[in-house]
Protein backbone atom coordinates (compact mmCIF):
# COMPACT_ATOMS: atom_id res chain seq x y z
CA UNK A 1 0.00 0.00 0.00
CA UNK A 2 2.73 2.46 1.02
CA UNK A 3 4.72 1.60 -2.07
CA UNK A 4 2.09 2.56 -4.62
CA UNK A 5 2.92 6.33 -4.70
CA UNK A 6 6.50 5.37 -5.48
CA UNK A 7 6.03 2.31 -7.68
CA UNK A 8 3.46 3.62 -10.13
CA UNK A 9 5.33 6.83 -11.05
CA UNK A 10 8.63 4.93 -11.04
CA UNK A 11 7.31 2.37 -13.53
CA UNK A 12 5.81 5.16 -15.63
CA UNK A 13 9.09 7.06 -15.70
CA UNK A 14 11.04 3.92 -16.58
CA UNK A 15 8.62 3.10 -19.38
CA UNK A 16 8.11 6.55 -20.86
CA UNK A 17 11.32 8.42 -20.05
CA UNK A 18 14.21 6.02 -19.41
CA UNK A 19 13.33 3.36 -21.97
CA UNK A 20 12.66 5.82 -24.84
CA UNK A 21 15.95 7.61 -24.20
CA UNK A 22 17.80 4.29 -24.21
CA UNK A 23 16.11 3.40 -27.50
CA UNK A 24 17.32 6.69 -28.98
CA UNK A 25 20.85 5.74 -27.93
CA UNK A 26 20.46 2.29 -29.46
CA UNK A 27 18.94 3.70 -32.63
CA UNK A 28 21.81 6.11 -33.10
CA UNK A 29 24.06 3.11 -33.69
CA UNK A 30 21.54 1.11 -35.75
CA UNK A 31 21.45 0.25 -39.44
CA UNK A 32 18.83 2.03 -41.45
CA UNK A 33 16.33 -0.42 -42.93
CA UNK A 34 13.58 -0.58 -45.51
CA UNK A 35 10.95 -2.15 -43.27
CA UNK A 36 8.52 -0.71 -40.75
CA UNK A 37 9.98 0.68 -38.52
CA UNK A 38 12.84 1.66 -40.86
CA UNK A 39 15.81 0.46 -38.83
CA UNK A 40 17.59 -2.66 -37.60
CA UNK A 41 18.69 -2.60 -33.97
CA UNK A 42 22.42 -3.13 -33.31
CA UNK A 43 21.76 -6.38 -31.45
CA UNK A 44 19.63 -9.38 -32.21
CA UNK A 45 19.93 -13.01 -31.15
CA UNK A 46 20.45 -14.03 -34.75
CA UNK A 47 23.16 -11.60 -35.79
CA UNK A 48 24.71 -10.69 -32.44
CA UNK A 49 26.24 -7.29 -31.71
CA UNK A 50 26.43 -5.18 -34.89
CA UNK A 51 26.74 -1.50 -34.09
CA UNK A 52 26.73 0.99 -36.91
CA UNK A 53 28.83 4.06 -36.13
CA UNK A 54 28.06 5.73 -39.42
CA UNK A 55 25.24 8.08 -38.29
CA UNK A 56 27.30 9.49 -35.41
CA UNK A 57 30.38 9.71 -37.60
CA UNK A 58 28.37 11.57 -40.20
CA UNK A 59 27.66 14.35 -37.72
CA UNK A 60 31.37 15.00 -37.28
CA UNK A 61 32.39 14.61 -40.90
CA UNK A 62 29.56 16.31 -42.73
CA UNK A 63 29.64 20.10 -42.56
CA UNK A 64 25.88 20.15 -43.10
CA UNK A 65 25.24 18.69 -39.65
CA UNK A 66 28.09 20.46 -37.96
CA UNK A 67 26.87 23.85 -39.15
CA UNK A 68 23.38 22.96 -37.91
CA UNK A 69 24.81 22.72 -34.42
CA UNK A 70 26.67 25.99 -34.79
CA UNK A 71 23.49 27.67 -36.03
CA UNK A 72 21.50 26.24 -33.15
CA UNK A 73 24.02 27.48 -30.62
CA UNK A 74 24.07 30.90 -32.25
CA UNK A 75 20.28 31.22 -32.35
CA UNK A 76 19.75 29.80 -28.86
CA UNK A 77 22.54 31.92 -27.39
CA UNK A 78 21.31 35.06 -29.14
CA UNK A 79 17.72 34.42 -28.10
CA UNK A 80 18.71 33.80 -24.48
CA UNK A 81 20.88 36.92 -24.39
CA UNK A 82 18.13 39.08 -25.88
CA UNK A 83 15.57 37.63 -23.47
CA UNK A 84 17.88 38.41 -20.57
CA UNK A 85 18.49 41.95 -21.80
CA UNK A 86 14.78 42.61 -22.24
CA UNK A 87 13.62 40.51 -19.30
CA UNK A 88 15.90 41.87 -16.58
CA UNK A 89 14.47 45.41 -16.52
CA UNK A 90 10.99 43.88 -16.76
CA UNK A 91 11.53 41.61 -13.77
CA UNK A 92 13.14 44.44 -11.83
CA UNK A 93 10.25 46.73 -12.72
CA UNK A 94 7.73 44.17 -11.44
CA UNK A 95 9.70 43.67 -8.21
CA UNK A 96 9.81 47.42 -7.65
CA UNK A 97 6.07 47.89 -8.28
CA UNK A 98 3.64 48.14 -5.37
CA UNK A 99 2.51 44.79 -3.94
CA UNK A 100 -0.98 45.37 -5.34
CA UNK A 101 0.26 45.84 -8.88
CA UNK A 102 2.79 42.99 -8.91
CA UNK A 103 0.31 40.16 -9.63
CA UNK A 104 -1.33 42.29 -12.33
CA UNK A 105 2.01 42.90 -14.05
CA UNK A 106 2.89 39.20 -13.84
CA UNK A 107 -0.48 38.45 -15.43
CA UNK A 108 0.32 40.98 -18.14
CA UNK A 109 3.50 39.01 -18.91
CA UNK A 110 1.67 35.68 -19.08
CA UNK A 111 -1.64 36.64 -20.64
CA UNK A 112 -0.41 36.98 -24.27
CA UNK A 113 0.48 33.29 -24.07
CA UNK A 114 -3.10 32.29 -23.63
CA UNK A 115 -3.72 32.89 -27.31
CA UNK A 116 -1.75 29.74 -28.05
CA UNK A 117 1.77 29.32 -29.33
CA UNK A 118 1.01 28.81 -33.03
CA UNK A 119 -1.45 31.69 -33.51
CA UNK A 120 1.18 34.02 -32.03
CA UNK A 121 3.75 32.79 -34.52
CA UNK A 122 1.04 33.23 -37.15
CA UNK A 123 0.57 36.80 -36.01
CA UNK A 124 4.26 37.50 -36.59
CA UNK A 125 4.00 36.15 -40.13
CA UNK A 126 0.99 38.39 -40.66
CA UNK A 127 2.87 41.38 -39.32
CA UNK A 128 6.11 40.79 -41.18
CA UNK A 129 5.21 39.38 -44.60
CA UNK A 130 5.19 41.37 -47.83
CA UNK A 131 1.46 42.16 -47.67
CA UNK A 132 1.70 42.32 -43.91
CA UNK A 133 0.92 44.93 -41.31
CA UNK A 134 4.30 46.68 -41.18
CA UNK A 135 4.75 46.86 -44.95
CA UNK A 136 1.14 48.03 -45.31
CA UNK A 137 1.76 50.73 -42.75
CA UNK A 138 5.00 51.91 -44.35
CA UNK A 139 3.43 51.91 -47.81
CA UNK A 140 0.42 53.79 -46.51
CA UNK A 141 2.78 56.42 -45.14
CA UNK A 142 4.47 56.59 -48.51
CA UNK A 143 7.86 55.72 -47.05
CA UNK A 144 8.50 52.71 -49.27
CA UNK A 145 7.47 51.58 -52.74
CA UNK A 146 8.45 47.94 -52.65
CA UNK A 147 7.77 45.81 -49.56
CA UNK A 148 10.69 45.20 -47.24
CA UNK A 149 11.64 41.51 -47.09
CA UNK A 150 11.01 41.06 -43.37
CA UNK A 151 9.60 37.57 -43.13
CA UNK A 152 11.83 34.47 -43.51
CA UNK A 153 14.82 36.38 -42.18
CA UNK A 154 17.05 36.21 -39.14
CA UNK A 155 15.22 39.22 -37.74
CA UNK A 156 11.85 37.52 -38.02
CA UNK A 157 13.21 34.36 -36.44
CA UNK A 158 14.75 36.22 -33.51
CA UNK A 159 11.59 38.30 -33.01
CA UNK A 160 9.52 35.12 -32.84
CA UNK A 161 12.02 33.33 -30.60
CA UNK A 162 12.34 36.20 -28.14
CA UNK A 163 8.59 36.70 -28.10
CA UNK A 164 8.01 33.02 -27.37
CA UNK A 165 10.72 32.62 -24.73
CA UNK A 166 10.67 35.98 -22.95
CA UNK A 167 8.42 34.83 -20.06
CA UNK A 168 10.81 31.91 -19.43
CA UNK A 169 13.40 34.55 -18.63
CA UNK A 170 11.17 37.03 -16.80
CA UNK A 171 9.68 34.55 -14.34
CA UNK A 172 12.92 33.10 -12.88
CA UNK A 173 14.48 36.57 -12.86
CA UNK A 174 11.48 37.88 -10.98
CA UNK A 175 11.67 34.95 -8.56
CA UNK A 176 15.33 35.60 -7.81
CA UNK A 177 14.96 39.39 -7.63
CA UNK A 178 11.96 39.23 -5.32
CA UNK A 179 13.90 36.93 -2.99
CA UNK A 180 16.65 39.53 -2.78
CA UNK A 181 16.73 41.16 0.64
CA UNK A 182 15.98 44.84 0.08
CA UNK A 183 17.81 45.80 3.28
CA UNK A 184 21.04 44.82 1.51
CA UNK A 185 20.44 47.63 -0.94
CA UNK A 186 19.56 49.94 1.96
CA UNK A 187 22.77 48.92 3.70
CA UNK A 188 24.82 49.68 0.57
CA UNK A 189 23.19 53.11 0.28
CA UNK A 190 23.82 53.71 3.97
CA UNK A 191 27.50 52.96 3.40
CA UNK A 192 27.67 55.64 0.72
CA UNK A 193 26.82 53.84 -2.53
CA UNK A 194 24.90 55.82 -5.15
CA UNK A 195 21.86 54.09 -6.72
CA UNK A 196 23.85 53.02 -9.79
CA UNK A 197 26.64 51.68 -7.57
CA UNK A 198 24.11 49.84 -5.40
CA UNK A 199 22.79 48.18 -8.55
CA UNK A 200 26.25 47.21 -9.84
CA UNK A 201 27.77 46.06 -6.55
CA UNK A 202 24.79 44.47 -4.77
CA UNK A 203 21.70 43.89 -6.93
CA UNK A 204 23.46 42.56 -10.02
CA UNK A 205 25.90 40.14 -8.31
CA UNK A 206 23.14 38.74 -6.13
CA UNK A 207 20.82 38.33 -9.10
CA UNK A 208 23.56 36.67 -11.16
CA UNK A 209 22.62 33.04 -10.35
CA UNK A 210 19.01 33.84 -11.25
CA UNK A 211 20.16 35.49 -14.47
CA UNK A 212 22.25 32.46 -15.41
CA UNK A 213 19.28 30.19 -14.65
CA UNK A 214 17.04 32.40 -16.79
CA UNK A 215 19.56 32.30 -19.64
CA UNK A 216 19.75 28.51 -19.50
CA UNK A 217 15.97 28.12 -19.18
CA UNK A 218 15.71 29.88 -22.55
CA UNK A 219 18.87 28.45 -24.10
CA UNK A 220 18.12 24.76 -23.51
CA UNK A 221 14.72 24.51 -25.23
CA UNK A 222 15.68 27.12 -27.84
CA UNK A 223 18.65 24.99 -28.95
CA UNK A 224 16.23 22.31 -30.15
CA UNK A 225 13.54 24.66 -31.44
CA UNK A 226 11.87 23.54 -34.64
CA UNK A 227 8.63 25.45 -35.23
CA UNK A 228 9.84 29.07 -35.11
CA UNK A 229 12.82 28.73 -37.49
CA UNK A 230 10.58 26.70 -39.78
CA UNK A 231 7.79 29.29 -39.92
CA UNK A 232 9.69 32.57 -39.57
CA UNK A 233 13.35 31.92 -40.35
CA UNK A 234 15.19 31.98 -43.66
CA UNK A 235 15.43 28.66 -45.55
CA UNK A 236 19.13 28.48 -44.79
CA UNK A 237 18.52 28.65 -41.02
CA UNK A 238 18.86 24.90 -40.70
CA UNK A 239 18.97 24.40 -36.97
CA UNK A 240 19.36 21.01 -35.33
CA UNK A 241 15.64 20.77 -34.65
CA UNK A 242 14.83 21.43 -38.26
CA UNK A 243 17.47 19.02 -39.60
CA UNK A 244 16.34 16.31 -37.19
CA UNK A 245 12.74 16.83 -38.31
CA UNK A 246 13.76 16.58 -41.96
CA UNK A 247 15.80 13.43 -41.44
CA UNK A 248 12.96 11.84 -39.56
CA UNK A 249 9.86 12.89 -41.49
CA UNK A 250 11.15 13.58 -45.02
CA UNK A 251 14.23 11.35 -45.41
CA UNK A 252 12.91 8.69 -43.02
CA UNK A 253 16.49 8.18 -41.87
CA UNK A 254 15.70 7.33 -38.27
CA UNK A 255 19.24 6.41 -37.19
CA UNK A 256 20.58 9.82 -38.29
CA UNK A 257 17.68 11.56 -36.54
CA UNK A 258 18.49 9.61 -33.38
CA UNK A 259 22.18 10.43 -33.74
CA UNK A 260 21.26 14.11 -33.98
CA UNK A 261 19.16 13.78 -30.80
CA UNK A 262 22.05 12.11 -29.00
CA UNK A 263 24.47 14.79 -30.16
CA UNK A 264 22.05 17.55 -29.12
CA UNK A 265 21.81 15.99 -25.68
CA UNK A 266 25.59 15.78 -25.44
CA UNK A 267 25.87 19.45 -26.35
CA UNK A 268 23.19 20.39 -23.83
CA UNK A 269 24.32 18.16 -20.98
CA UNK A 270 26.58 20.83 -19.48
CA UNK A 271 23.98 23.63 -19.59
CA UNK A 272 21.37 21.22 -18.21
CA UNK A 273 23.57 20.12 -15.31
CA UNK A 274 24.44 23.75 -14.56
CA UNK A 275 20.77 24.72 -14.62
CA UNK A 276 19.81 21.87 -12.28
CA UNK A 277 22.61 22.88 -9.91
CA UNK A 278 21.35 26.45 -9.80
CA UNK A 279 17.80 25.26 -9.22
CA UNK A 280 18.84 22.94 -6.40
CA UNK A 281 20.73 25.74 -4.70
CA UNK A 282 17.68 27.98 -4.51
Amino acid sequence: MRRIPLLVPALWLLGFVALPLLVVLALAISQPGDGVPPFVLPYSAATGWQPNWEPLGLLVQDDYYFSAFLQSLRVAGGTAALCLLLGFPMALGITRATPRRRPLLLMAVLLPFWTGFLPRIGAWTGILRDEGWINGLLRGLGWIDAPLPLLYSDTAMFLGMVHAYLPFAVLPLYASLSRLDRTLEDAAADLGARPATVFLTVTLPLAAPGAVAAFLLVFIPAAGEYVIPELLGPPEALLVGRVLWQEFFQNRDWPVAAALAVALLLVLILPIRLFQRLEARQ
Partner: protein
Amino acid sequence: MTRIGLWLGLGFLWLPVLLLAGYAFSDSRVPFQWGGFSLRWFAALAANDRLREAAWLSLRIAAGSATLAVLLGGATGWVLARRGPFAGRAIFGALAGAPLVLPEVVTGLSLLLGFVLLQAATGWPAERGATTVLLAHATTGLAYVAVVVQARLAGMDASLEDAARDLGATPWVAFRTITLPLILPSLLAGWLLAFTLSLDDVVVASFVSGPAGTTLPMVVFSMLRLGLTPEVNALAVVILALALLVGGVAGWALRRVGN
Protein backbone atom coordinates in the same frame (compact mmCIF):
# COMPACT_ATOMS: atom_id res chain seq x y z
CA MET B 1 14.87 53.20 -16.37
CA THR B 2 13.43 49.90 -15.22
CA ARG B 3 9.98 51.33 -15.74
CA ILE B 4 10.70 52.13 -19.38
CA GLY B 5 12.12 48.63 -19.79
CA LEU B 6 9.04 47.07 -18.24
CA TRP B 7 6.59 48.89 -20.49
CA LEU B 8 8.79 48.32 -23.55
CA GLY B 9 8.82 44.59 -22.85
CA LEU B 10 5.09 44.44 -22.19
CA GLY B 11 4.46 46.38 -25.40
CA PHE B 12 6.56 43.88 -27.34
CA LEU B 13 4.69 40.96 -25.79
CA TRP B 14 1.28 42.48 -26.41
CA LEU B 15 1.69 44.02 -29.88
CA PRO B 16 1.16 40.87 -31.97
CA VAL B 17 -1.58 39.67 -29.65
CA LEU B 18 -3.53 42.93 -29.85
CA LEU B 19 -3.11 43.10 -33.63
CA LEU B 20 -4.19 39.50 -33.97
CA ALA B 21 -7.24 40.04 -31.79
CA GLY B 22 -8.20 43.21 -33.66
CA TYR B 23 -7.81 41.81 -37.17
CA ALA B 24 -9.75 38.69 -36.24
CA PHE B 25 -12.80 40.93 -36.69
CA SER B 26 -11.72 42.25 -40.08
CA ASP B 27 -13.80 41.46 -43.14
CA SER B 28 -10.72 41.28 -45.40
CA ARG B 29 -9.53 38.00 -46.91
CA VAL B 30 -5.96 39.11 -46.35
CA PRO B 31 -4.92 38.59 -42.76
CA PHE B 32 -3.80 41.75 -40.96
CA GLN B 33 -5.55 44.03 -43.43
CA TRP B 34 -8.60 45.98 -42.32
CA GLY B 35 -11.73 45.51 -44.39
CA GLY B 36 -14.44 46.63 -42.03
CA PHE B 37 -15.91 44.86 -39.01
CA SER B 38 -17.10 41.35 -39.55
CA LEU B 39 -17.58 38.08 -37.71
CA ARG B 40 -17.17 36.03 -40.88
CA TRP B 41 -13.95 34.36 -39.76
CA PHE B 42 -15.61 33.15 -36.59
CA ALA B 43 -18.40 31.74 -38.75
CA ALA B 44 -15.80 30.13 -41.01
CA LEU B 45 -14.15 28.68 -37.95
CA ALA B 46 -17.41 27.19 -36.74
CA ALA B 47 -18.05 25.67 -40.16
CA ASN B 48 -14.58 24.10 -40.43
CA ASP B 49 -15.18 20.45 -39.58
CA ARG B 50 -11.53 19.53 -39.61
CA LEU B 51 -10.67 22.22 -37.08
CA ARG B 52 -13.66 21.41 -34.91
CA GLU B 53 -12.86 17.72 -34.75
CA ALA B 54 -9.22 18.42 -34.02
CA ALA B 55 -10.18 20.88 -31.28
CA TRP B 56 -12.50 18.37 -29.65
CA LEU B 57 -9.81 15.69 -29.78
CA SER B 58 -7.21 18.11 -28.36
CA LEU B 59 -9.48 19.10 -25.49
CA ARG B 60 -10.08 15.48 -24.58
CA ILE B 61 -6.39 14.64 -24.79
CA ALA B 62 -5.50 17.71 -22.73
CA ALA B 63 -8.07 16.95 -20.02
CA GLY B 64 -7.10 13.28 -19.87
CA SER B 65 -3.37 13.83 -19.88
CA ALA B 66 -3.61 16.63 -17.29
CA THR B 67 -5.60 14.39 -14.98
CA LEU B 68 -3.11 11.56 -15.37
CA ALA B 69 -0.27 14.05 -14.89
CA VAL B 70 -1.78 15.30 -11.62
CA LEU B 71 -2.17 11.77 -10.24
CA LEU B 72 1.32 10.65 -11.27
CA GLY B 73 3.07 13.97 -10.76
CA GLY B 74 1.40 14.54 -7.39
CA ALA B 75 2.67 11.15 -6.19
CA THR B 76 6.11 11.88 -7.66
CA GLY B 77 6.33 15.29 -5.98
CA TRP B 78 5.23 13.79 -2.68
CA VAL B 79 7.79 10.99 -2.91
CA LEU B 80 10.59 13.45 -3.73
CA ALA B 81 9.65 15.86 -0.94
CA ARG B 82 8.65 13.49 1.85
CA ARG B 83 9.81 9.96 1.39
CA GLY B 84 13.40 10.47 2.48
CA PRO B 85 16.24 8.46 1.02
CA PHE B 86 15.56 5.26 -0.89
CA ALA B 87 17.52 3.19 -3.36
CA GLY B 88 17.43 4.84 -6.77
CA ARG B 89 16.15 8.16 -5.50
CA ALA B 90 18.68 10.10 -7.60
CA ILE B 91 17.65 8.24 -10.76
CA PHE B 92 13.97 8.66 -9.91
CA GLY B 93 14.45 12.41 -9.47
CA ALA B 94 16.50 12.73 -12.65
CA LEU B 95 13.89 10.86 -14.70
CA ALA B 96 11.07 12.96 -13.23
CA GLY B 97 12.93 16.14 -14.10
CA ALA B 98 14.12 15.05 -17.55
CA PRO B 99 11.05 16.15 -19.55
CA LEU B 100 11.56 19.67 -18.17
CA VAL B 101 15.00 20.05 -19.71
CA LEU B 102 14.87 17.87 -22.82
CA PRO B 103 14.37 19.72 -26.10
CA GLU B 104 10.96 18.99 -27.60
CA VAL B 105 12.35 17.21 -30.65
CA VAL B 106 14.30 14.84 -28.40
CA THR B 107 11.26 14.14 -26.20
CA GLY B 108 9.10 13.56 -29.26
CA LEU B 109 11.56 11.30 -31.04
CA SER B 110 12.39 9.28 -27.92
CA LEU B 111 8.74 8.74 -26.97
CA LEU B 112 7.91 7.64 -30.51
CA LEU B 113 10.76 5.16 -30.51
CA GLY B 114 9.68 3.93 -27.10
CA PHE B 115 6.16 3.33 -28.38
CA VAL B 116 7.48 1.56 -31.50
CA LEU B 117 9.60 -0.74 -29.40
CA LEU B 118 6.83 -1.41 -26.88
CA GLN B 119 4.53 -2.29 -29.71
CA ALA B 120 7.07 -4.62 -31.26
CA ALA B 121 7.67 -6.32 -27.92
CA THR B 122 4.18 -6.44 -26.41
CA GLY B 123 1.73 -5.50 -29.15
CA TRP B 124 0.65 -2.47 -27.14
CA PRO B 125 -0.07 0.33 -28.04
CA ALA B 126 -1.62 -1.29 -31.11
CA GLU B 127 -1.54 1.92 -33.15
CA ARG B 128 -0.32 5.44 -32.74
CA GLY B 129 -2.86 8.21 -32.38
CA ALA B 130 -4.83 9.88 -29.62
CA THR B 131 -3.71 7.35 -26.99
CA THR B 132 0.01 7.77 -27.62
CA VAL B 133 -0.34 11.57 -27.65
CA LEU B 134 -2.19 11.36 -24.34
CA LEU B 135 0.52 9.17 -22.82
CA ALA B 136 3.25 11.49 -24.09
CA HIS B 137 1.54 14.59 -22.74
CA ALA B 138 0.86 12.89 -19.40
CA THR B 139 4.60 12.21 -19.16
CA THR B 140 5.67 15.81 -19.75
CA GLY B 141 2.78 17.06 -17.57
CA LEU B 142 3.90 14.71 -14.80
CA ALA B 143 7.25 16.48 -14.63
CA TYR B 144 5.68 19.92 -14.30
CA VAL B 145 3.13 18.83 -11.66
CA ALA B 146 5.88 17.07 -9.69
CA VAL B 147 7.96 20.26 -9.56
CA VAL B 148 5.01 22.37 -8.42
CA VAL B 149 3.90 19.88 -5.76
CA GLN B 150 7.43 19.22 -4.53
CA ALA B 151 8.05 22.96 -4.12
CA ARG B 152 4.79 23.36 -2.21
CA LEU B 153 5.55 20.43 0.09
CA ALA B 154 9.11 21.62 0.66
CA GLY B 155 7.75 24.96 1.81
CA MET B 156 5.30 23.23 4.13
CA ASP B 157 6.09 22.19 7.67
CA ALA B 158 6.62 18.41 7.67
CA SER B 159 5.68 18.29 11.35
CA LEU B 160 2.06 18.97 10.35
CA GLU B 161 1.81 15.39 9.10
CA ASP B 162 3.71 14.14 12.16
CA ALA B 163 1.26 16.01 14.38
CA ALA B 164 -1.66 14.33 12.62
CA ARG B 165 -0.01 10.93 13.10
CA ASP B 166 0.64 11.76 16.74
CA LEU B 167 -3.05 12.57 17.16
CA GLY B 168 -4.00 9.13 15.89
CA ALA B 169 -4.31 9.49 12.12
CA THR B 170 -3.16 6.64 9.90
CA PRO B 171 -0.74 7.65 7.12
CA TRP B 172 -3.60 7.64 4.63
CA VAL B 173 -5.91 9.69 6.89
CA ALA B 174 -3.08 12.13 7.64
CA PHE B 175 -2.51 12.53 3.91
CA ARG B 176 -6.21 12.96 3.13
CA THR B 177 -7.02 15.38 5.96
CA ILE B 178 -3.81 17.42 6.19
CA THR B 179 -1.51 17.08 3.18
CA LEU B 180 -4.07 16.87 0.40
CA PRO B 181 -6.02 20.03 1.38
CA LEU B 182 -2.75 21.94 1.66
CA ILE B 183 -1.40 20.88 -1.74
CA LEU B 184 -4.77 21.16 -3.49
CA PRO B 185 -3.99 24.61 -4.97
CA SER B 186 -0.72 23.23 -6.37
CA LEU B 187 -2.52 20.24 -7.85
CA LEU B 188 -5.07 22.53 -9.48
CA ALA B 189 -2.35 24.84 -10.79
CA GLY B 190 -0.42 21.79 -12.02
CA TRP B 191 -3.51 20.45 -13.79
CA LEU B 192 -4.01 23.77 -15.59
CA LEU B 193 -0.34 23.89 -16.55
CA ALA B 194 -0.40 20.35 -17.95
CA PHE B 195 -3.67 21.07 -19.75
CA THR B 196 -2.26 24.23 -21.37
CA LEU B 197 1.00 22.54 -22.38
CA SER B 198 -0.93 19.72 -23.99
CA LEU B 199 -3.18 22.11 -25.92
CA ASP B 200 -0.16 24.06 -27.16
CA ASP B 201 2.10 21.19 -28.19
CA VAL B 202 2.77 20.52 -31.83
CA VAL B 203 6.25 18.96 -31.88
CA VAL B 204 5.82 16.00 -29.53
CA ALA B 205 2.34 15.30 -30.90
CA SER B 206 3.65 15.31 -34.49
CA PHE B 207 6.17 12.64 -33.57
CA VAL B 208 4.02 10.26 -31.55
CA SER B 209 0.68 10.67 -33.32
CA GLY B 210 -0.65 8.61 -36.16
CA PRO B 211 -3.25 9.04 -38.87
CA ALA B 212 -6.13 8.91 -36.38
CA GLY B 213 -4.72 11.48 -33.98
CA THR B 214 -4.53 14.88 -35.61
CA THR B 215 -4.61 17.43 -32.81
CA LEU B 216 -5.59 21.09 -33.11
CA PRO B 217 -2.01 22.44 -33.07
CA MET B 218 -1.10 19.97 -35.81
CA VAL B 219 -3.94 21.31 -37.98
CA VAL B 220 -3.02 24.92 -37.24
CA PHE B 221 0.63 24.20 -38.01
CA SER B 222 -0.23 22.84 -41.43
CA MET B 223 -2.50 25.86 -42.02
CA LEU B 224 0.37 28.20 -41.14
CA ARG B 225 2.76 26.31 -43.40
CA LEU B 226 0.39 26.60 -46.33
CA GLY B 227 -0.16 30.28 -45.72
CA LEU B 228 -1.81 32.33 -43.02
CA THR B 229 -5.58 32.78 -43.10
CA PRO B 230 -7.68 35.06 -40.88
CA GLU B 231 -9.30 31.96 -39.41
CA VAL B 232 -6.19 31.43 -37.33
CA ASN B 233 -6.68 34.88 -35.78
CA ALA B 234 -10.30 34.07 -34.98
CA LEU B 235 -9.19 30.78 -33.46
CA ALA B 236 -6.65 32.60 -31.26
CA VAL B 237 -9.37 34.95 -30.01
CA VAL B 238 -11.58 31.98 -29.14
CA ILE B 239 -8.67 30.28 -27.32
CA LEU B 240 -7.88 33.51 -25.45
CA ALA B 241 -11.52 33.96 -24.43
CA LEU B 242 -11.70 30.36 -23.19
CA ALA B 243 -8.37 30.72 -21.40
CA LEU B 244 -9.54 33.91 -19.69
CA LEU B 245 -12.74 32.14 -18.64
CA VAL B 246 -10.91 29.07 -17.33
CA GLY B 247 -8.19 31.25 -15.76
CA GLY B 248 -10.80 33.43 -14.08
CA VAL B 249 -12.67 30.43 -12.69
CA ALA B 250 -9.43 28.79 -11.61
CA GLY B 251 -8.18 31.97 -9.95
CA TRP B 252 -11.47 32.29 -8.12
CA ALA B 253 -11.35 28.63 -7.09
CA LEU B 254 -7.72 28.93 -5.97
CA ARG B 255 -8.58 31.91 -3.83
CA ARG B 256 -11.50 30.01 -2.28
CA VAL B 257 -9.30 27.00 -1.60
CA GLY B 258 -6.55 29.29 -0.33
CA ASN B 259 -8.94 30.84 2.15
